[in-house]
Protein backbone atom coordinates (compact mmCIF):
# COMPACT_ATOMS: atom_id res chain seq x y z
CA UNK A 1 0.00 0.00 0.00
CA UNK A 2 1.64 3.26 -1.19
CA UNK A 3 0.05 5.59 1.24
CA UNK A 4 -1.76 5.14 4.52
CA UNK A 5 -3.73 7.66 6.60
CA UNK A 6 -4.10 7.44 10.36
CA UNK A 7 -6.50 9.84 12.09
CA UNK A 8 -6.80 10.82 15.77
CA UNK A 9 -10.43 9.69 15.83
CA UNK A 10 -12.92 8.90 13.10
CA UNK A 11 -15.58 10.89 14.93
CA UNK A 12 -14.81 14.21 16.62
CA UNK A 13 -16.62 17.14 18.17
CA UNK A 14 -18.00 19.48 15.54
CA UNK A 15 -15.67 22.50 15.41
CA UNK A 16 -12.98 20.65 17.27
CA UNK A 17 -9.46 19.66 16.11
CA UNK A 18 -8.53 16.61 14.02
CA UNK A 19 -4.99 15.36 13.59
CA UNK A 20 -4.02 13.03 10.77
CA UNK A 21 -0.81 11.53 9.49
CA UNK A 22 -0.06 9.99 6.15
CA UNK A 23 2.94 7.75 5.48
CA UNK A 24 4.29 6.99 2.03
CA UNK A 25 6.09 3.71 1.85
CA UNK A 26 9.50 3.48 0.27
CA UNK A 27 8.41 0.84 -2.21
CA UNK A 28 6.31 3.36 -4.02
CA UNK A 29 9.23 2.96 -6.51
CA UNK A 30 8.15 5.31 -9.14
CA UNK A 31 8.39 8.27 -6.85
CA UNK A 32 11.07 10.97 -6.32
CA UNK A 33 13.35 10.65 -3.40
CA UNK A 34 11.60 13.48 -1.51
CA UNK A 35 7.94 13.35 -2.65
CA UNK A 36 5.74 16.18 -1.33
CA UNK A 37 2.69 14.88 0.48
CA UNK A 38 -0.44 16.97 0.09
CA UNK A 39 -3.78 16.91 1.87
CA UNK A 40 -7.23 17.56 0.45
CA UNK A 41 -10.35 17.95 2.59
CA UNK A 42 -13.50 17.22 0.63
CA UNK A 43 -13.65 19.61 -2.33
CA UNK A 44 -11.16 22.08 -0.93
CA UNK A 45 -7.81 22.69 -2.71
CA UNK A 46 -4.82 20.58 -1.68
CA UNK A 47 -2.57 21.89 1.05
CA UNK A 48 0.76 20.69 2.46
CA UNK A 49 0.83 19.17 5.92
CA UNK A 50 2.05 21.01 9.03
CA UNK A 51 5.18 18.88 9.02
CA UNK A 52 6.73 16.27 6.71
CA UNK A 53 9.61 14.11 7.76
CA UNK A 54 11.55 11.01 6.63
CA UNK A 55 11.28 8.25 9.16
CA UNK A 56 14.21 5.95 10.05
CA UNK A 57 12.73 3.20 7.90
CA UNK A 58 12.83 5.48 4.93
CA UNK A 59 9.14 6.20 4.74
CA UNK A 60 7.90 9.76 4.40
CA UNK A 61 5.33 10.98 6.96
CA UNK A 62 3.23 14.10 6.80
CA UNK A 63 1.18 15.33 9.71
CA UNK A 64 -1.68 17.82 9.62
CA UNK A 65 -3.99 19.26 12.27
CA UNK A 66 -7.31 20.71 11.22
CA UNK A 67 -7.98 23.06 14.13
CA UNK A 68 -11.70 23.61 13.60
CA UNK A 69 -13.29 20.71 11.75
CA UNK A 70 -16.66 22.18 10.84
CA UNK A 71 -18.06 19.47 8.58
CA UNK A 72 -20.47 16.85 9.89
CA UNK A 73 -18.94 14.51 7.32
CA UNK A 74 -16.04 14.84 4.90
CA UNK A 75 -13.34 12.79 3.20
CA UNK A 76 -9.69 13.57 3.92
CA UNK A 77 -7.36 12.61 1.07
CA UNK A 78 -3.62 11.99 1.23
CA UNK A 79 -2.15 12.94 -2.14
CA UNK A 80 1.17 13.14 -3.86
CA UNK A 81 2.24 15.60 -6.52
CA UNK A 82 2.99 13.35 -9.46
CA UNK A 83 3.41 14.88 -12.86
CA UNK A 84 0.95 17.73 -13.17
CA UNK A 85 -1.81 16.04 -11.28
CA UNK A 86 -2.00 15.25 -7.51
CA UNK A 87 -2.43 11.54 -6.99
CA UNK A 88 -4.74 10.23 -4.25
CA UNK A 89 -2.99 7.56 -2.20
CA UNK A 90 -5.46 7.06 0.63
CA UNK A 91 -8.72 8.41 1.95
CA UNK A 92 -10.27 8.60 5.43
CA UNK A 93 -13.86 9.48 6.29
CA UNK A 94 -14.20 12.04 9.06
CA UNK A 95 -17.43 12.63 10.94
CA UNK A 96 -18.21 15.28 13.51
CA UNK A 97 -21.12 16.08 15.71
CA UNK A 98 -22.09 16.58 19.32
CA UNK A 99 -22.44 14.25 22.26
CA UNK A 100 -26.11 13.64 23.11
CA UNK A 101 -27.84 16.08 25.44
CA UNK A 102 -29.77 14.76 28.42
CA UNK A 103 -33.13 13.47 27.14
CA UNK A 104 -35.89 15.54 28.79
CA UNK A 105 -39.65 15.62 29.37
CA UNK A 106 -39.85 11.86 29.94
CA UNK A 107 -43.48 10.83 30.52
CA UNK A 108 -45.34 7.54 30.40
CA UNK A 109 -48.90 6.39 29.75
CA UNK A 110 -50.36 2.95 30.46
CA UNK A 111 -52.63 1.80 27.63
CA UNK A 112 -55.36 -0.54 28.85
CA UNK A 113 -56.12 -1.70 25.32
CA UNK A 114 -52.63 -2.81 24.34
CA UNK A 115 -51.73 -3.41 28.00
CA UNK A 116 -48.37 -1.75 27.37
CA UNK A 117 -46.62 1.17 29.00
CA UNK A 118 -45.61 3.78 26.41
CA UNK A 119 -43.02 6.36 27.39
CA UNK A 120 -42.00 9.36 25.32
CA UNK A 121 -39.27 11.94 25.67
CA UNK A 122 -37.67 14.94 24.06
CA UNK A 123 -34.43 13.71 22.35
CA UNK A 124 -32.85 17.19 22.28
CA UNK A 125 -31.06 18.90 19.38
CA UNK A 126 -29.63 16.96 16.41
CA UNK A 127 -26.18 15.58 17.21
CA UNK A 128 -25.38 14.95 13.53
CA UNK A 129 -24.24 11.51 14.59
CA UNK A 130 -26.02 8.16 14.83
CA UNK A 131 -27.48 8.38 18.35
CA UNK A 132 -29.20 5.44 20.04
CA UNK A 133 -31.94 6.01 22.59
CA UNK A 134 -32.84 3.20 25.00
CA UNK A 135 -35.70 3.15 27.50
CA UNK A 136 -34.31 1.48 30.60
CA UNK A 137 -36.22 0.39 33.68
CA UNK A 138 -36.24 -1.88 36.67
CA UNK A 139 -38.84 -3.08 39.11
CA UNK A 140 -38.74 -1.44 42.48
CA UNK A 141 -41.08 -0.74 45.36
CA UNK A 142 -42.04 1.94 47.79
CA UNK A 143 -40.18 5.15 46.95
CA UNK A 144 -37.97 3.47 44.34
CA UNK A 145 -34.83 3.42 46.47
CA UNK A 146 -34.28 -0.31 45.92
CA UNK A 147 -33.64 -2.11 42.63
CA UNK A 148 -35.45 -5.41 42.16
CA UNK A 149 -35.61 -7.31 38.87
CA UNK A 150 -34.35 -5.35 35.90
CA UNK A 151 -36.58 -5.12 32.84
CA UNK A 152 -35.52 -5.76 29.25
CA UNK A 153 -34.31 -2.57 27.54
CA UNK A 154 -36.93 -1.04 25.25
CA UNK A 155 -35.34 0.04 22.00
CA UNK A 156 -37.53 2.42 19.97
CA UNK A 157 -38.02 1.69 16.31
CA UNK A 158 -35.95 3.73 13.86
CA UNK A 159 -35.32 7.04 15.47
CA UNK A 160 -38.64 7.41 17.27
CA UNK A 161 -38.78 9.17 20.64
CA UNK A 162 -41.11 6.75 22.33
CA UNK A 163 -41.08 3.12 23.26
CA UNK A 164 -43.65 0.68 24.59
CA UNK A 165 -42.85 -1.84 27.32
CA UNK A 166 -45.06 -4.92 26.81
CA UNK A 167 -47.37 -6.20 29.55
CA UNK A 168 -45.30 -9.33 30.26
CA UNK A 169 -42.38 -7.16 31.40
CA UNK A 170 -44.54 -5.03 33.68
CA UNK A 171 -45.35 -5.60 37.34
CA UNK A 172 -48.62 -3.76 37.81
CA UNK A 173 -49.47 -2.11 41.10
CA UNK A 174 -45.79 -1.85 42.08
CA UNK A 175 -43.45 1.07 41.48
CA UNK A 176 -40.81 0.84 38.79
CA UNK A 177 -37.94 3.13 37.85
CA UNK A 178 -37.75 4.33 34.24
CA UNK A 179 -35.27 6.51 32.40
CA UNK A 180 -33.91 7.12 28.92
CA UNK A 181 -30.29 6.67 27.85
CA UNK A 182 -28.91 8.50 24.82
CA UNK A 183 -25.62 7.27 23.35
CA UNK A 184 -23.44 8.11 20.40
CA UNK A 185 -19.72 7.93 19.60
CA UNK A 186 -19.05 11.06 21.64
CA UNK A 187 -20.79 10.15 24.85
CA UNK A 188 -23.72 8.83 26.82
CA UNK A 189 -26.35 10.78 28.74
CA UNK A 190 -29.13 9.58 31.05
CA UNK A 191 -32.43 11.33 31.66
CA UNK A 192 -33.77 11.88 35.12
CA UNK A 193 -35.53 8.81 36.49
CA UNK A 194 -39.28 8.40 36.91
CA UNK A 195 -40.67 6.35 39.81
CA UNK A 196 -44.17 5.18 38.91
CA UNK A 197 -46.70 2.36 39.11
CA UNK A 198 -47.94 1.72 35.57
CA UNK A 199 -51.53 1.62 36.84
CA UNK A 200 -51.15 5.14 38.22
CA UNK A 201 -50.52 6.50 34.70
CA UNK A 202 -53.42 4.83 32.95
CA UNK A 203 -54.89 7.05 30.29
CA UNK A 204 -58.63 6.54 30.33
CA UNK A 205 -60.79 6.86 27.26
CA UNK A 206 -63.90 9.00 27.74
CA UNK A 207 -67.14 7.44 29.03
CA UNK A 208 -70.07 6.78 26.72
CA UNK A 209 -73.08 9.06 27.09
CA UNK A 210 -76.56 8.34 25.81
CA UNK A 211 -79.93 10.00 25.66
CA UNK A 212 -82.86 8.78 27.73
CA UNK A 213 -86.43 9.32 26.57
CA UNK A 214 -88.08 11.41 29.33
CA UNK A 215 -91.51 10.02 28.47
CA UNK A 216 -90.31 6.48 29.14
CA UNK A 217 -89.47 7.34 32.77
CA UNK A 218 -91.70 6.17 35.64
CA UNK A 219 -92.48 9.65 36.96
CA UNK A 220 -93.70 12.42 34.62
CA UNK A 221 -90.75 14.54 33.46
CA UNK A 222 -90.21 17.99 35.03
CA UNK A 223 -89.92 20.89 32.60
CA UNK A 224 -86.45 22.27 31.85
CA UNK A 225 -84.68 18.98 32.56
CA UNK A 226 -82.22 16.78 30.67
CA UNK A 227 -82.28 12.98 30.87
CA UNK A 228 -79.16 11.00 30.16
CA UNK A 229 -77.14 7.95 31.10
CA UNK A 230 -73.46 7.05 30.91
CA UNK A 231 -71.04 4.24 31.54
CA UNK A 232 -67.23 4.12 31.77
CA UNK A 233 -64.91 3.02 28.98
CA UNK A 234 -65.24 -0.78 29.02
CA UNK A 235 -61.55 -1.76 29.55
CA UNK A 236 -61.50 0.45 32.65
CA UNK A 237 -64.69 -0.80 34.25
CA UNK A 238 -62.72 -2.50 37.06
CA UNK A 239 -61.36 0.88 38.17
CA UNK A 240 -63.17 3.09 40.64
CA UNK A 241 -63.56 6.41 38.83
CA UNK A 242 -64.95 9.87 39.33
CA UNK A 243 -66.40 11.86 36.45
CA UNK A 244 -67.41 15.40 35.61
CA UNK A 245 -70.01 16.62 33.18
CA UNK A 246 -70.04 19.95 31.36
CA UNK A 247 -72.88 21.52 29.45
CA UNK A 248 -73.56 24.64 27.43
CA UNK A 249 -76.51 25.82 25.36
CA UNK A 250 -76.04 24.82 21.75
CA UNK A 251 -76.64 28.45 20.71
CA UNK A 252 -75.64 31.68 22.24
CA UNK A 253 -71.99 30.90 22.95
CA UNK A 254 -72.42 30.66 26.72
CA UNK A 255 -69.43 29.04 28.41
CA UNK A 256 -69.39 25.55 29.75
CA UNK A 257 -70.93 24.81 33.12
CA UNK A 258 -69.37 21.94 35.01
CA UNK A 259 -71.18 19.35 37.20
CA UNK A 260 -68.89 17.33 39.46
CA UNK A 261 -68.16 14.98 41.01
CA UNK A 262 -70.31 12.33 39.37
CA UNK A 263 -70.15 8.54 39.63
CA UNK A 264 -68.50 6.57 36.84
CA UNK A 265 -71.79 5.16 35.64
CA UNK A 266 -75.42 6.18 35.79
CA UNK A 267 -78.20 4.54 33.83
CA UNK A 268 -80.72 7.29 34.60
CA UNK A 269 -79.67 10.82 35.42
CA UNK A 270 -81.82 13.92 35.50
CA UNK A 271 -80.29 17.38 35.26
CA UNK A 272 -82.75 20.24 35.84
CA UNK A 273 -82.86 23.99 36.17
CA UNK A 274 -82.73 24.78 32.46
CA UNK A 275 -85.08 26.77 30.29
CA UNK A 276 -87.57 24.43 28.60
CA UNK A 277 -87.29 23.31 24.96
CA UNK A 278 -83.65 24.33 24.68
CA UNK A 279 -80.91 22.27 23.05
CA UNK A 280 -77.82 21.69 25.15
CA UNK A 281 -74.43 20.21 24.33
CA UNK A 282 -73.05 17.86 26.98
CA UNK A 283 -69.62 16.23 27.43
CA UNK A 284 -68.14 14.08 30.17
CA UNK A 285 -64.70 12.98 31.26
CA UNK A 286 -63.53 10.61 34.01
CA UNK A 287 -60.47 9.98 36.15
CA UNK A 288 -59.40 7.02 38.30
CA UNK A 289 -60.25 7.83 41.90
CA UNK A 290 -59.34 7.70 44.73
CA UNK A 291 -56.22 6.02 43.29
CA UNK A 292 -54.04 8.22 41.05
CA UNK A 293 -54.66 8.53 37.29
CA UNK A 294 -55.02 10.89 34.35
CA UNK A 295 -58.22 12.55 33.21
CA UNK A 296 -59.68 11.10 30.06
CA UNK A 297 -60.30 13.54 27.27
CA UNK A 298 -63.82 14.93 27.03
CA UNK A 299 -66.34 12.60 25.47
CA UNK A 300 -67.88 13.35 22.09
CA UNK A 301 -70.72 15.85 22.48
CA UNK A 302 -74.25 14.73 23.21
CA UNK A 303 -77.01 17.09 22.03
CA UNK A 304 -80.06 17.05 24.31
CA UNK A 305 -83.21 19.09 24.28
CA UNK A 306 -84.76 20.10 27.61
CA UNK A 307 -88.26 18.96 28.36
CA UNK A 308 -91.20 21.26 27.60
Amino acid sequence: KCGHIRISAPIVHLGGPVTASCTISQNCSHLDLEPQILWRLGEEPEQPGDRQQRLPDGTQESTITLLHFNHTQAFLFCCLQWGNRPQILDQAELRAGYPPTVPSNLSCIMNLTTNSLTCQWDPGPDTHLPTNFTLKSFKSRGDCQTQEDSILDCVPENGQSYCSIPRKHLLLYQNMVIWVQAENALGTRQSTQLCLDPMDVVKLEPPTLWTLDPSSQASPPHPGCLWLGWEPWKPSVFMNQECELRHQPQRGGASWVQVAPLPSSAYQYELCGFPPATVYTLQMRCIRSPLPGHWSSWSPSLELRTTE
Partner: protein
Amino acid sequence: PLGPANSLPLPRSFLLKSSEQVRKIQAQGAMLQEKLCATYKLCHPEELALLGHSLGIPRAPLSSCSSQALQLTGCLSQLHRGLFLYQGLLQALAGTSPELSPTLDMLQLDVANFATTVWQQMEDLEVAPAVQPTQSTMPTFTSDFQRRAGGVLVTSHLQSFLGLAYRVLRYLAEP
Protein backbone atom coordinates in the same frame (compact mmCIF):
# COMPACT_ATOMS: atom_id res chain seq x y z
CA PRO B 1 -70.51 -10.04 58.93
CA LEU B 2 -66.79 -10.58 59.18
CA GLY B 3 -65.22 -11.01 62.58
CA PRO B 4 -62.76 -8.50 64.16
CA ALA B 5 -59.48 -8.16 62.26
CA ASN B 6 -56.42 -8.23 64.46
CA SER B 7 -54.26 -5.19 64.81
CA LEU B 8 -52.11 -5.37 61.63
CA PRO B 9 -52.22 -1.87 60.08
CA LEU B 10 -52.92 -2.40 56.40
CA PRO B 11 -52.21 0.79 54.41
CA ARG B 12 -55.23 2.23 52.62
CA SER B 13 -53.33 2.34 49.32
CA PHE B 14 -52.73 -1.42 49.59
CA LEU B 15 -56.43 -2.05 50.19
CA LEU B 16 -57.48 0.25 47.32
CA LYS B 17 -54.94 -1.18 44.88
CA SER B 18 -55.68 -4.76 45.89
CA SER B 19 -59.40 -4.22 45.46
CA GLU B 20 -58.80 -2.83 42.01
CA GLN B 21 -56.50 -5.75 41.17
CA VAL B 22 -59.19 -8.22 42.24
CA ARG B 23 -61.74 -6.47 40.02
CA LYS B 24 -59.27 -6.46 37.13
CA ILE B 25 -58.62 -10.19 37.51
CA GLN B 26 -62.32 -10.94 37.88
CA ALA B 27 -63.02 -9.04 34.65
CA GLN B 28 -60.20 -10.89 32.89
CA GLY B 29 -61.44 -14.21 34.30
CA ALA B 30 -64.98 -13.50 33.14
CA MET B 31 -63.61 -12.81 29.67
CA LEU B 32 -61.88 -16.20 29.66
CA GLN B 33 -65.03 -17.94 30.88
CA GLU B 34 -67.06 -16.24 28.14
CA LYS B 35 -64.57 -17.39 25.49
CA LEU B 36 -64.48 -20.99 26.81
CA CYS B 37 -68.28 -21.03 26.73
CA ALA B 38 -68.63 -19.40 23.32
CA THR B 39 -65.84 -21.38 21.64
CA TYR B 40 -66.19 -24.83 23.20
CA LYS B 41 -69.67 -24.74 24.76
CA LEU B 42 -68.09 -25.47 28.15
CA CYS B 43 -70.22 -23.08 30.15
CA HIS B 44 -70.98 -24.76 33.47
CA PRO B 45 -68.18 -25.78 35.85
CA GLU B 46 -70.60 -27.89 37.82
CA GLU B 47 -70.79 -30.23 34.81
CA LEU B 48 -67.06 -30.78 35.09
CA ALA B 49 -66.80 -31.49 38.82
CA LEU B 50 -66.11 -35.21 38.35
CA LEU B 51 -63.44 -34.50 35.79
CA GLY B 52 -61.99 -31.94 38.16
CA HIS B 53 -61.67 -34.55 40.87
CA SER B 54 -60.07 -37.04 38.55
CA LEU B 55 -57.57 -34.47 37.31
CA GLY B 56 -56.86 -33.39 40.86
CA ILE B 57 -57.48 -29.69 40.30
CA PRO B 58 -56.99 -28.14 43.72
CA ARG B 59 -58.86 -25.24 45.30
CA ALA B 60 -57.05 -22.68 47.42
CA PRO B 61 -58.37 -22.24 50.97
CA LEU B 62 -59.06 -18.87 52.52
CA SER B 63 -60.18 -20.16 55.90
CA SER B 64 -58.21 -17.49 57.82
CA CYS B 65 -60.21 -14.87 55.94
CA SER B 66 -63.54 -16.37 56.87
CA SER B 67 -66.17 -14.37 58.59
CA GLN B 68 -65.99 -16.30 61.85
CA ALA B 69 -62.49 -15.27 62.88
CA LEU B 70 -60.50 -13.11 60.48
CA GLN B 71 -56.86 -13.79 61.25
CA LEU B 72 -55.04 -11.21 59.16
CA THR B 73 -51.53 -12.64 58.93
CA GLY B 74 -52.95 -16.05 58.12
CA CYS B 75 -55.39 -14.49 55.67
CA LEU B 76 -52.66 -12.60 53.81
CA SER B 77 -50.54 -15.73 53.73
CA GLN B 78 -53.40 -17.86 52.38
CA LEU B 79 -54.26 -15.14 49.88
CA HIS B 80 -50.69 -15.17 48.59
CA ARG B 81 -50.44 -18.96 48.50
CA GLY B 82 -53.76 -19.17 46.72
CA LEU B 83 -52.74 -16.62 44.11
CA PHE B 84 -49.44 -18.45 43.69
CA LEU B 85 -51.33 -21.73 43.20
CA TYR B 86 -53.70 -20.23 40.61
CA GLN B 87 -50.76 -18.62 38.82
CA GLY B 88 -49.24 -22.10 38.52
CA LEU B 89 -52.52 -23.66 37.41
CA LEU B 90 -53.00 -21.01 34.74
CA GLN B 91 -49.42 -21.60 33.58
CA ALA B 92 -50.17 -25.33 33.36
CA LEU B 93 -53.07 -24.45 31.04
CA ALA B 94 -50.82 -22.59 28.63
CA GLY B 95 -51.23 -23.74 25.06
CA THR B 96 -54.92 -24.48 25.47
CA SER B 97 -55.64 -22.80 22.15
CA PRO B 98 -54.48 -19.83 20.12
CA GLU B 99 -57.83 -18.10 20.62
CA LEU B 100 -57.54 -18.30 24.40
CA SER B 101 -53.83 -17.65 24.78
CA PRO B 102 -53.91 -13.82 24.91
CA THR B 103 -56.65 -13.81 27.56
CA LEU B 104 -55.08 -16.69 29.49
CA ASP B 105 -51.63 -15.03 29.42
CA MET B 106 -53.06 -11.71 30.60
CA LEU B 107 -55.00 -13.42 33.39
CA GLN B 108 -51.91 -15.28 34.53
CA LEU B 109 -49.85 -12.06 34.53
CA ASP B 110 -52.52 -10.20 36.51
CA VAL B 111 -52.71 -13.01 39.09
CA ALA B 112 -48.90 -13.10 39.35
CA ASN B 113 -48.76 -9.32 39.84
CA PHE B 114 -51.44 -9.45 42.54
CA ALA B 115 -49.48 -12.21 44.30
CA THR B 116 -46.45 -9.89 44.28
CA THR B 117 -48.52 -7.04 45.71
CA VAL B 118 -49.64 -9.24 48.61
CA TRP B 119 -46.18 -10.70 49.17
CA GLN B 120 -44.50 -7.28 49.27
CA GLN B 121 -47.14 -6.06 51.72
CA MET B 122 -46.40 -9.07 53.94
CA GLU B 123 -42.70 -8.19 53.72
CA ASP B 124 -43.44 -4.58 54.63
CA LEU B 125 -45.43 -5.82 57.66
CA GLU B 126 -42.59 -8.29 58.41
CA VAL B 127 -44.97 -11.22 58.42
CA ALA B 128 -43.67 -12.82 55.23
CA PRO B 129 -42.16 -16.30 55.51
CA ALA B 130 -38.39 -16.45 55.04
CA VAL B 131 -38.72 -18.03 51.58
CA GLN B 132 -41.31 -17.77 48.88
CA PRO B 133 -43.57 -20.81 48.55
CA THR B 134 -42.62 -23.42 45.98
CA GLN B 135 -45.21 -24.53 43.46
CA SER B 136 -46.88 -27.84 44.25
CA THR B 137 -47.27 -30.48 41.57
CA MET B 138 -49.67 -29.31 38.95
CA PRO B 139 -52.33 -31.50 37.39
CA THR B 140 -51.39 -33.01 34.04
CA PHE B 141 -53.71 -32.23 31.18
CA THR B 142 -53.34 -34.89 28.51
CA SER B 143 -55.80 -33.62 25.92
CA ASP B 144 -57.13 -30.39 24.50
CA PHE B 145 -60.46 -31.15 26.09
CA GLN B 146 -58.86 -31.60 29.52
CA ARG B 147 -57.08 -28.26 29.15
CA ARG B 148 -60.30 -26.51 28.17
CA ALA B 149 -62.23 -28.16 30.99
CA GLY B 150 -59.35 -27.37 33.31
CA GLY B 151 -59.57 -23.75 32.18
CA VAL B 152 -63.26 -23.63 33.08
CA LEU B 153 -62.68 -25.19 36.50
CA VAL B 154 -59.56 -23.23 37.43
CA THR B 155 -61.17 -19.94 36.43
CA SER B 156 -64.33 -20.78 38.31
CA HIS B 157 -62.36 -21.66 41.46
CA LEU B 158 -60.31 -18.49 41.02
CA GLN B 159 -63.45 -16.34 40.78
CA SER B 160 -64.85 -17.83 44.00
CA PHE B 161 -61.49 -17.36 45.70
CA LEU B 162 -61.38 -13.72 44.55
CA GLY B 163 -64.95 -13.15 45.63
CA LEU B 164 -64.07 -13.94 49.24
CA ALA B 165 -60.81 -12.00 48.98
CA TYR B 166 -62.73 -8.97 47.73
CA ARG B 167 -65.16 -9.15 50.64
CA VAL B 168 -62.30 -9.18 53.12
CA LEU B 169 -60.53 -6.28 51.39
CA ARG B 170 -63.71 -4.22 51.33
CA TYR B 171 -64.30 -5.01 54.99
CA LEU B 172 -60.76 -3.96 55.90
CA ALA B 173 -61.09 -0.78 53.86
CA GLU B 174 -64.14 0.35 55.79
CA PRO B 175 -63.29 3.41 57.87
